[in-house]
């Protein structure tokens, strides 16, 4: 069974959000990385862009397929994880920490309440 990190919040499209004041860290869940398989490429070009909730934040390519990652929140992309350029496998190895994808400054903190709590996500992706 795939891991669901306590204290993070989740989307139906398998992104996680870690809230840190007015900023959030975003990545994809253990469930998602497991289903994608070995990840070979992550596009990290969104830095500095202003993004709306539901927009495509980046595209992840694995040996199986290419998939869009949708931004769970609206705001400004403060940073992308440049380490993924060298080692995209970080998302497979450590999806909740080293494998983070983007840091976003929240434009609209109320959006967070529309996301799933860890227990709900666990139920949602129970296999």
């Amino acid at each position, binding site marked *: 069974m795939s891991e669901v990190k306590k204290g993070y919040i989740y989307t139906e499209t398998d992104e996680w959000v870690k809230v840190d004041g007015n900023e959030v860290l975003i990545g994809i869940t253990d469930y998602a990385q497991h289903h994608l*398989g*070995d990840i*070979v*490429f992550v596009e990290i070009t969104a830095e500095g862009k202003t993004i709306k909730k539901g927009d495509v934040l980046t595209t992840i*390519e694995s*040996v*199986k*397929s290419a998939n869009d990652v949708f931004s769970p929140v609206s705001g400004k992309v403060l940073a992308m994880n440049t380490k993924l350029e060298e080692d995209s496998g970080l998302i497979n190895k450590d999806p909740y920490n080293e494998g983070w994808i983007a840091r976003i400054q929240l434009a609209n903190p109320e959006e967070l309440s529309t996301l799933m709590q860890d227990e709900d996500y666990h139920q949602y992706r129970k*296999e």
Partner: protein
Amino acid sequence: MTVKLLIESSKKGNTGIHLPLKSNFPKTDLHQTFPNEWVRETIGLPNVSEPEVVRHFTNLASLNYGVDSGFYPLGSCTMKYNPKINEKLANLEGFTKTHPLQPDFTVQGNLYLMMHFEQLLAEITGMDAFTLLPAAGAHGELTGMMIVKAYFQNKGEAEKRTKILIPESAHGTNPASAASVGFEIVEVKSTNCGGVDVAHLKEVMNDQVAAIMLTNPNTAGVFETDILEVAEIMHQNGSLLYYDGANLNALLGQVRPGDMGFDIVHLNLHKTFSTPHGGGGPGSAPVGVKEYLREYLPVPVIRERNHQITSETDQFNSIGMIRLAGSNFQVIVKAYLYILTMGSDGLKKASSIAVLNANYIKEKLSPFIPAGVPCICMHECVLSAKDFAPYGVQAKDISKRLIDYGFHPPTNYFPLIIPEALMIEPTETESKETMDHFIDAMKKIVQEAKENPSLLLEAPHYTPISRPDEVKAAKDLNVTY
């Protein structure tokens, strides 16, 4: 057995060619003609003898696996048998020794064949006009999207109509083709059978939508039963419907995309009409349109005037040329022969048997590997290997083990909406005996997965290379040895 590259077999002095000792050309010093950095002292060609080269390629060819060597149930690819008589006829000199830019009056036969073929495709699909120019499926999609753009430009709506709707179950080429023409992609959710979620379609519908791209049967191999409603919603909004012909093999002679409401279609001759593909290509993807879009078709167009067939470029609203000259003509000849040989009854029978075969495999295998969608399938079925997770076995491991049993694996991990997908398309050209052999092998593999999963995890056992490093292949590509 490892297969050496020719360059690895190279030994200085070995050679398979004999150049004349005396040259008619004066010797020149390349260093005086070109800057030094442009001149290579050696060009790195392997030094090998003629028998070494012949054996190298003969041995490689013997490792190849194609439709002519065995069952090839690669879903979504329609790997049907390619009749050899079509190869023979397509190689007649009148076809092979003519040039696409030859004067029309010298190639009336070839032009007639193309014109008649366009008419046959129009009849089969329920469209009004065809172009035979696109070189393969994605090129057909691009052509179709350019027609959509030109249509709205001509109506003065190009600024507004910027969006193309694409179901989440679609082939990856669809969004790529639409984006290449500058459209924005909007994803439409799928039902549990891979169809268009009509409620969601209504939600995302607005006056910015130019068209929807659909495959029917959809990529899960299921017929889009809401297609008439989808067409009505699109047309009421002034938007167009584009038909991706990837799965037309299920419908030949039964129902027509034109009657479902599609405005533009592309066909894959190399799938539906039995011309070789997958290394044996090239492909060919004629694009058909309804009458009111005829003026946008790419040029040259083939017309008949005063008992002469001509290839003409004077079409004012045309999207222009989409390739330098001509179509993949010999592919068209083979597809034309296929249609004439089969006749309308034959085509109808082919699609009936293609659907029957897929359902036979699905019914026989689904007690062992559950079906991916709870629906009757058309010409291909999708199984989901997700229940094998406790044994550490994934869809790809089942496929790798199938190679040991002498079968080409089915398509893996597509469509994306079905976890651990194994997509099987037997086509109408397989006998019940062949399918039964395949079904038996799959059942044995399921048993092995539970009792001795390492048999699967280490498969294939009898190929020169067992499992290529897929991550390295994707990240560390080196094509210049």
